[in-house]
């Protein structure tokens, strides 16, 4: 909390929250003026002489300077009250990974605890309208990566993003969300519970100052931070035209590895990921393989494949073998197994009790353990 004291900070918040000026230019100004306070107090003539700013940007800076000291103090107090912190350029807590990307954010507002940036990190992104397959995969990958001490970076969106982070939180690992709005706003509102958990046990961060609405134009920009914060980007599910592919483009631009989870060729929600693989992205096969690719070797034996541990009675094995990660309806299972309804239902209940399957939707079942 030390950086809340003194005058220094409100100017930092002011500079970090200034709109219409790219992170790159803010960093330039900061370097030029030494600190934000000097910039705030800089006269118009001084600004005039700065070569990188065009006329419009100069106007913006001047307009921003017109905010009074009291106003700055007030916005700072709002942040203090709501536990919103700032890590800005050259701060110790500022993630090193972002320093080397094109147009890094000048500062990041955040709630919760910043992850330890020296840890390896994986960005998990994907479709909002995902399938149960994608959701389950994302959740389990998130869980297993976080358990392996990897930071899971995502965007807290509906669908894949949220699922991955829920998984990460479940294993008690570290995860952070990059938002396209102010960190005091929960978007989408349906993820309120996740948002709360992230503030408690993870972190939500944003380039945008508090109160910023979730505008559509913010999200592609936010994606560059997601990829920037990750060593490797994993796309779980994406349609042919998807925001996740923008993130993948940023990742490639920033020199990160891109991996995709393959899907069936007829599934619309896997067309984007399959396309990425076609274009040369890494293919996610299983956890061990993926971790090896990331040069993470663990000597734990807990992840010896769950499948080997499964020992089932004949009937249960029959039913279990009909299930995978695509939800199967009861009616389909009846036909496929040829069992009577009563027997099938009881077997499903037994399997569910043992935790091997779950009912994801009314009368639709999938396997739970996959890796």
């Amino acid at each position, binding site marked *: 909390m030390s950086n809340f004291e003194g005058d220094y900070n409100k100017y930092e918040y002011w500079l970090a929250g200034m709109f219409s000026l790219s992170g790159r230019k803010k960093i330039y100004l900061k370097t030029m003026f030494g600190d934000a306070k000097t910039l705030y107090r800089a006269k118009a003539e001084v600004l005039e002489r700065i070569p990188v700013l065009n006329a419009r940007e100069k106007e913006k800076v001047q307009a921003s300077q017109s905010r009074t000291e009291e106003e700055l103090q007030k916005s700072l107090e709002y942040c203090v009250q709501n536990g919103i912190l700032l890590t800005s350029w050259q701060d110790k807590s500022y993630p090193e990974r972002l320093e080397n990307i094109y147009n890094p954010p000048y500062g990041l507002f955040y709630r919760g605890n910043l992850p330890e940036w020296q840890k390896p990190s994986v960005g998990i992104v994907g479709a909002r309208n995902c*399938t149960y397959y994608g959701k389950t995969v994302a959740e389990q990958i998130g869980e297993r990566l976080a358990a392996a001490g990897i930071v899971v970076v995502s965007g807290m969106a509906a669908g894949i993003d949220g699922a991955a982070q829920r998984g990460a939180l479940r294993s008690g690992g570290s995860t952070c969300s990059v938002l396209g709005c102010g960190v005091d706003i929960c978007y989408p509102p349906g993820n309120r519970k996740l948002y709360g958990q992230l503030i408690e046990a993870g972190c939500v961060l944003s380039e945008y100052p508090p109160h910023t609405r979730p505008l559509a134009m913010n999200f592609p920009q936010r994606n560059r931070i997601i990829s920037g914060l990750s060593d490797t980007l994993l796309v779980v599910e994406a349609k042919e035209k998807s925001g996740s592919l923008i993130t993948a483009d940023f990742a490639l631009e920033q020199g990160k590895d891109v991996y995709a989870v393959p899907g069936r060729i007829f599934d619309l929600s896997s067309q984007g990921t399959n396309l990425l693989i076609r274009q040369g992205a890494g293919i996610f096969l299983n956890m061990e393989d993926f971790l090896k690719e990331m040069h993470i070797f663990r000597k734990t034996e807990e992840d010896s494949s769950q499948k080997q541990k499964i020992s089932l009675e004949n009937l249960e094995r029959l039913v279990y073998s009909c299930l995978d990660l695509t939800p199967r309806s009861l009616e389909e299972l009846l036909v496929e197994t040829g069992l009577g309804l009563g027997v099938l239902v009881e077997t499903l209940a037994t399997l569910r009790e043992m935790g091997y399957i779950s009912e994801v939707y009314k009368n639709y079942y999938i396997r739970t353990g996959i890796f």
Partner: protein
Amino acid sequence: MYSLVSTAIVCGIRSILIQVEADVCDGMPAFEMVGVLSSEVKEAKERIRAAIRNSGIRLSPKRITINLYPADIRKSGTVFDLPIALAILSAYGRVPREYLEGILFAGEISLNGQVRPTTGILPMVLAAREAGKRVVCVPKENMREAQIVKGITILPGEDLNQVIEMLDTFFRKPQKYISEGNYIEETVQQTQEGSCDFAFIHGQKVLKRACEIAASGRHNMLMLGSPGAGKTMAARAVSTILPPLTDEEALEIAKVYSVTGMFGQREGNFRKRPYRSPHHTISLAGMAGGGTVPKPGEISLAHKGVLFLDELTEFKRPVLEVLRQPLEEREIRLVRGSGTYFYPADIMLVAAMNPCSCGYFPDRNRCTCSQAMIDRHLNKISRPLLDRMDLCVEVGRPALWELTANQPEEASSAIRHRVERTQRIQRERFEGTKILYNSRIPVPAIEKWCVMEKEGERLLHDSFERMELTARGYYRVLRVARTIADMEGEEKISRAHICESLLYRSIDRKVWDFE
């Protein structure tokens, strides 16, 4: 001269006897009617005057006063024409007063003297019998309706002259009109032509099983599935596997239909359970019953039968919310300025809906709805209503081979036999109580009637935690399990029964929500 004639008005589905007094005396010619009358009763004056004249009866101009009592009830409806006309004729001395004694009259009269049919005859005849009257004179078209009541002699009225003649004959030779026999018993249950049969539904084993359970224990059922999967067809078929009505039930339903003027719909199949499927544009009054003197709504017309709500999410919210109280209390209470009206509403609710607005969720290759859209779709139905659904079943699209395979499917009649057997078991168990079906077991009695085996109990308790069942949901699972056990003829509820019952538990938010 003074005369007195009995008639009745309908109040809810009850009927109250009304006396019509007429006085004819010398003085300034006038026609006065008193006794808290609504406008349609006041208009009777003009109709009666013309009807008497056109029937060829000449009356000398005198001062006529009509009084309807008891005076504290507002008289509405058109059944008063015939009694008023006869009271006047009697007061003039054209009809001997003793001819009218002990007879209840009801009927509308047209300007040419014809007696026209009217609504609510059945409750009136019942009220007449209760009051000790043994003879009723009703419009000829309503005769069938009156015949339902045992031990009543019916005089069918065609026109004013015929009625006077008939009264004369009846007075002299009453045996000519004595008609015994119960109309309900004469009719057998007929399956309607072209009605849906389970034999026409291919595959869909889960759905069929759920329908059978629902029918056996009269549980409410919700079907969830993509468009064209066969939800509507199944709902229609449910009504074909319900056992026939008992006499008492048939009478109760006939009363409701009589009051609404829809008696004709019940004619010929009194023992068939009603099946109502109102369109989703239905108004609140249409569902619950409405009007200043309320008429029964769909919920009462489906009494003892099936109320099917297709496209549940499209119904207006208040229309669905109004179902909540009747679903618990099995009757609907309508309070108006003129009084409180009770209508029976012991329904089995069958509803169908799509899982999302496009209808294809969770098939993401076809469904493009966002999570927010799906949430919005489900939010159209309130939790309390969902909670009242005992069974909920997903209806998938049948595969082509299932449709084309020429496998004979079980016919409704075979299923109905099983349903009847299961209901018999329930009746025997609940002998001496007011309960008829498993779905009606009150919470305090659940422990007594729903005895579980150890294994089943353990599973249910585990599931209570894991599935976050509500207390109401917990009891619903038990009631459904009781029905499943009864279907198998088991005394105790086993683990398998609980398993299956849990399968049909009502949908919860978690089903849609990814959290």
